[in-house]
């Protein structure tokens, strides 16, 4: 975070325009480019987002859709296992069909990507907006407001997400669109981490000269936050967000797996996993496809998140590496 703070101390900070984004962004790209793993991960993520966005196009190209039943493609007498080898892979069904229903797996997988990525991104956005708002208010507000918001943040951090989300999603009537609901629930529960980072950043920034100067010249809280604090806080928040996305993907998958996430016939990877788990012996590809999709996505996002953190804060990254040695050194 100190790098970010330093960056915001660059000349002219208190003046008309914060120069951080421009030079910071350029620097960021330069540093990110040097990390090959992060670049590969970024390419994978971009591909996934493209696939999700182009899902209707891709399935049209294949000539299928995610909800149509094909009873003729499963062996009814054998429990509905797909007819043909490798789960019924054919020119018409690129990744085979789902057992029992004969629905196209490729179509379900790419439409599932929309749910998984969409819910995760929306939830992350919500977490950031809430976390930044609470963190800033807490850092800039008076003692009483700070105390109240900090305790509220502590409560949210301490809240067991899965248990709470399970309870909440089970209670809310099913008429509310499920993907939106899942994003809202996850977003509203899991913003504590962002709030804590933003509050800590705000408090240390507050004592810096340029912020003090802005204050003395009579700027209001909102203006200070927008012009002086947010540019400096962007780096840690983006870093945190990059790691929140994969977490949110797994949370959505887990909730759908447990039956409280998106509802059928909507496809989501977690929901596919839950109906596939019993088929792992009879139709392994049915389980492997969503599992692999989840694995690749979460891994790519995590590596990318790590790369983003390194690029934004190389000193923090190197400190992490040196850290162990220093600890041994200063053991006393």
């Amino acid at each position: 975070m100190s790098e970010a703070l330093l960056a915001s101390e660059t000349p002219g900070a208190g003046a008309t325009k914060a120069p951080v984004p421009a030079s910071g962004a350029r620097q960021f790209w330069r540093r990110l480019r040097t990390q090959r793993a992060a670049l590969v991960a970024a390419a994978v993520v971009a591909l996934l987002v493209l696939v999700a966005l182009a899902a209707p196009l891709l399935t049209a190209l294949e000539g299928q859709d995610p909800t149509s039943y094909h009873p003729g493609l499963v062996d009814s007498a054998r429990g509905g296992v797909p007819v043909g080898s490798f789960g019924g892979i054919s020119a018409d069904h690129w990744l085979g069909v789902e057992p029992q229903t004969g629905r196209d797996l490729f179509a379900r997988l790419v439409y599932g990507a929309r749910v998984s990525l969409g819910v995760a991104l929306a939830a992350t956005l919500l977490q950031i907006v809430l976390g930044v708002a609470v963190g800033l208010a807490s850092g800039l507000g008076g003692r009483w407001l700070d105390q109240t918001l900090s305790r509220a943040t502590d409560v949210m951090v301490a809240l067991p997400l899965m248990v709470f989300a399970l309870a909440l999603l089970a209670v809310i009537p099913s008429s509310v669109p499920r993907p939106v609901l899942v994003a809202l629930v996850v977003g509203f529960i899991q913003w504590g981490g962002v709030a804590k980072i933003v509050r800590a950043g705000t408090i240390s920034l507050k004592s810096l000269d340029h912020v003090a100067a802005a204050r003395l010249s009579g700027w209001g809280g909102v203006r200070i936050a927008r012009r002086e604090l947010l540019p400096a806080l962007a780096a840690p928040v983006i870093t945190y967000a990059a790691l929140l996305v994969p977490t949110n993907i797994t949370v959505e998958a887990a909730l759908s797996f447990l039956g409280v996430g998106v509802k059928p016939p909507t496809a989501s990877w977690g929901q596919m996993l839950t109906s596939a788990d019993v088929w792992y012996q009879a139709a392994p590809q049915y389980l492997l496809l969503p599992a692999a999709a989840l694995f690749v996505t979460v891994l790519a996002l995590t590596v990318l998140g790590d790369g983003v953190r390194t690029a934004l804060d190389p000193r923090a990254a190197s400190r992490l590496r040196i850290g162990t040695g220093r600890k041994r050194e200063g053991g006393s």
Partner: protein
Amino acid sequence: MRLRRQKSVISRRVAVASATLVVLSVGAAACAGPDDKNEAGGGGKPQQGGTLTVLNSNPQSDFDPARLYTSGGGNVPSLVFRTLTTRNREDGATGTKVVPDLAESLGKPSENATVWTYKIKKGVRFEDGSPVTTKDIKYGIERSFAAELSGGAPFLRDWLIGGDKYQGPYKDKKGLDSVETPDDQTIVFRLNKPVGDFDYVATQTSFAPVPKAKDEGTKYEEHPVSTGPYKVVKNSGDGERLQLERNPHWSAKTDAERKAYPDKIDVRSGLNSSVINQRLSASQGADAAAITTDTNLGPAELAKVSGDKKLAAQVGTGHFGYTNYLAFNPKVKPFDDPKVRQAISYAVDRTSVINAAGGSSLAEPATTFLPNQKSFGYTKFDHFPAGASGNAKKAKELLKEAGHKDGLTITLTHSNDKNFETSPEIATALQDALKKAGITVKLQGLEDNDYEDKVHDAKDEPGLFLAHWGADWPSGGPFLAPIFDGRQIVNDGYNFNSSFHNDKSVNAEIDSINKLTDHDAAAKRWGALDKKIGAKALNVPLFHPVYKRLYGKDIKNVVISDWTGVLDVSQVAVK
């Protein structure tokens, strides 16, 4: 009164559920029979001896004859409790017959089937050697009226004269006058209405004798006094583990039904269904001589097992009288319009529904409400022929006539439980089929308890939902009456007449058939009644489940009757 009614109906629901569970089992073996495709592991004649292990998911909770709710006396319970009558332990359709157990012969009806008289066999003894008398049977029945021993079947409460007011032997020492024991071998039941099916009712465990001197109230279940071939040696964790050993005072001379080959039976419950199937297919150690009385093969497990010849030979197939259907609430628009109901009947795709239920090996298409078995009076009909995959064209025509030419949007309520009968998989299959007929289906998935409460609540009942019904005994009466008899609509409490059907001529026909004591004659008329009601499109029959169950490789003499659809523990041999 209202509370009592409510209670009895709830227990009926539970009963039906547990009956299904108790009933499903697999058979395998050397029994000859037209339906017997089950070949057991070893050849040769079944021998006495050995230990049979039962691997179950549900415990044998409340192992007290007053509290058990079973079909035909149950599977494990009937090893310990003999009843006045019992089911015929044979394969297939002959297994739907009711036969005498403690009684010398089936009951003698008189006064228009409102009075039933039984004489019991001489020489039947309890596990302590004392002789069984009809006073013990009367006492056992009276116990089932005690509030503290809840859970049993509600029929006697509803049908015995004074049964609605009787509080059980602990509160009411005088006893129930409508059950008479003129001597130690005779017992007479006086009913408030004709019940031609009474012999079937007398198979339930509440007809098991209980010696008054040994009754410990709610503690009796820890060690109920046996009359069957086995006695309870240990009951731990409220039936989670039940260890049975031979009852030396039981004699095959007085019991033609139970074979009782193994020396010991060890019932272990609380297991996950996939664990049970895994252990049975591995058949290692004690699991080679193991069966399950409550766990079916799921579709994925069936796919795996059917690809393996050795395992496929360890699967028993059975049919239990049961129907899964789509229920309409005609009080909710647009289901008040018969044309809309007919359109939906035409539009359903039974092939994809059956695939969702596990495929053609685990479900058979249904177009009648009665199960496809003769004992129920099955009469083939298909009022709204949808073919194998739905008749969208005919459905669209009907919708147009009903004034929905631009299609229709409806809500289908289902359970979120993964049970292959009211689950999301079935609902989405229907959703896809109705889409072809221009009907947009919105799915309302509820947690299983909410779902059960909602669909049985007359005030809150959804317009369209997935439902199922199983009978307490293989006859048309318990199958049709609770669902279509207008006098059985329950406005407060659990209601099963979900179409609120109340037709005087149907009610009168139900009463008239209930007077018949000739089961075959009654069956014919139940079948005709089913056909008549079916024309009203009050529901859409979807499928009748088929039960497939694994058993261990050393299991012999597998008998699966159509009464229970599952392997009969009393017939199994392990040597």
